[in-house]
């Protein structure tokens, strides 16, 4: 059971959580924070990592092309390979714009 006193949802902390195509073969995810403190809080929590997003999306590590912490924008960013290029038959999200939603409920432990 989650201890509500000591965790927050990522959506409560981040200013922006978004996803979008990065070219035709990848989708990139941006989690942007209001300030350095919130950014450091999430970075230091260890909850949002290359491993944790692989588990969340049910994908192998090899499908993650990049996972970067980007200080100038106080942002965490990762990118995954699509199984098929954007707009292939049955692709429900040609722009890749609605793939971020599961990140919103991620539990971030507070210090």
């Amino acid at each position, binding site marked *: 059971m989650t201890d509500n006193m000591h965790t927050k949802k990522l959506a409560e902390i981040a200013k*922006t959580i978004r996803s*979008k*195509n*990065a*070219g*035709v*073969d*990848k989708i*990139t995810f*941006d989690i*942007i924070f209001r300030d350095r403190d919130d950014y450091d809080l999430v970075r230091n929590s260890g909850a949002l990592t290359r491993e944790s997003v692989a588990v*969340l*999306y*049910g*994908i192998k590590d090899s499908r993650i*092309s*990049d996972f*970067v912490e*980007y200080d*100038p*924008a*106080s*942002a965490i*960013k990762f*990118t995954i*390979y699509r*199984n098929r*290029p*954007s*707009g*292939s*038959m*049955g*692709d*429900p*999200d*040609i*722009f890749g714009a*609605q*793939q971020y*939603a*599961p990140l919103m409920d991620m539990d971030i432990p507070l210090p």
Partner: protein
Amino acid sequence: MSSTRIICPNGHLGFAPLMTKSFHIGVAEKPDYIAADSGSDDIGPVPLATDTCASPSQWQEHDLEEMLLAARKLDVPMIIGSAGDTGTNSRVDMFVEMIKSIAKKHGLSQFKLGYFYSEVDPELIRTKMQNGSPILGLDERPPLTESELDATDHIVAMANAQPFMDLLDKGADVIIGGRSSDSALFAAAAMHNGHGPSESYYLGKVLECASFCAEPYGGKETVLGEVNDNGEVLVTAMSPAQRCTIASVAGHAMYERSNPFHENVAGGLLDMSNCVYEQESEKTTRVTGANFIASEEMRVKLEGAGKLGERFVGMAGIRDPYSVAHVDQIIDWAKTQVKKRFGEEGYELRYNVFGKNGVMGELEPVKETLSHELCVVVQATAPTAEMAEEICITGTRQMFYARLPDVKGTAGSVSFLLDEVLQASPACEWTLNHTMAVTDGLELFPRHITNAGI
């Protein structure tokens, strides 16, 4: 050489119209160039494969008219990249005709209209492959095969700044570019004025999507970019409601790319790892420290798309909780009926179940369906429209007749919004996301100059 100032009123010109108020504020700043990119590969493979636009011509004309009238009034160059979404030859010709017709409509004095093409003949690529120059894949794609090439209808090459600079050198007042890197058209203007490639390509990088580098969020507003003698880039929001902040400008560097530190263009890489962002004034952010690294080999990115077949779409709703829980069996029933009629191959049949995992498919972490109702979208593609329609209607209507063992409702397993299937755009696929070696940045981009106006 002093500073060079460029306004950009729109990213992906034509996809939605520019906002005129902030554009006119930008024009009043008397910039040295007015420039915008009109391309995107976000729109899926259909426009390139079928050589059509994703943007309505009214919006393209609206923006070209605003920009042309302002540029001619100020007597400064106007630059457009990736004409008509895809930058194919027909889209370049279409924009050239639009410019001529707008000039005529307004009785503009004669000016030089430069344009270049980006489309690549598949046979040229085949020859390169056969001569031992592999077409290397991007994003983990393997090198291009001849069968992938055969499945491709249109290929465009991604120009860097060189074709734009060549046309500026030849005195073009207006440039319509074929497919090009978003940053290249802005970089060309700055480099034409003598600035270095590092600050010029960075200027392009920050301006390419107009107000996406400003906050609060709002697209299609004009921004002003300036590059000065010290190699500094200054970017200013023109909308009274927006500012360019450290966060908004740095944030834009990561938009739509896998990595915020690197931007590849033909012949080099813009390294933004050491960029320093400073708030210059309320609406302006200053950026320094970008570094353009020329590559040893000139490789140009190729985008290619091919048509798979004609496509029809059907829709069905499900409300019975037992049927919601057994939607996979309903779909299996319908697929089986299609297989009985059409066999296993020669067509493609896809189901998206909205309410279950319609938006995310295999990436959806919610495995247990929580919705009380579902919408099933059925897509069929086949070589002919008749066959695609029949497969789609079979795949949709047979869900109505699905035989579930314990269903209470025996008069129909799904609801229909329409008792028909609808013809959609053809099914297409991105067949090329590759690079090809060239001898120089002008090789694939034939350039032309004509006159417009009276």
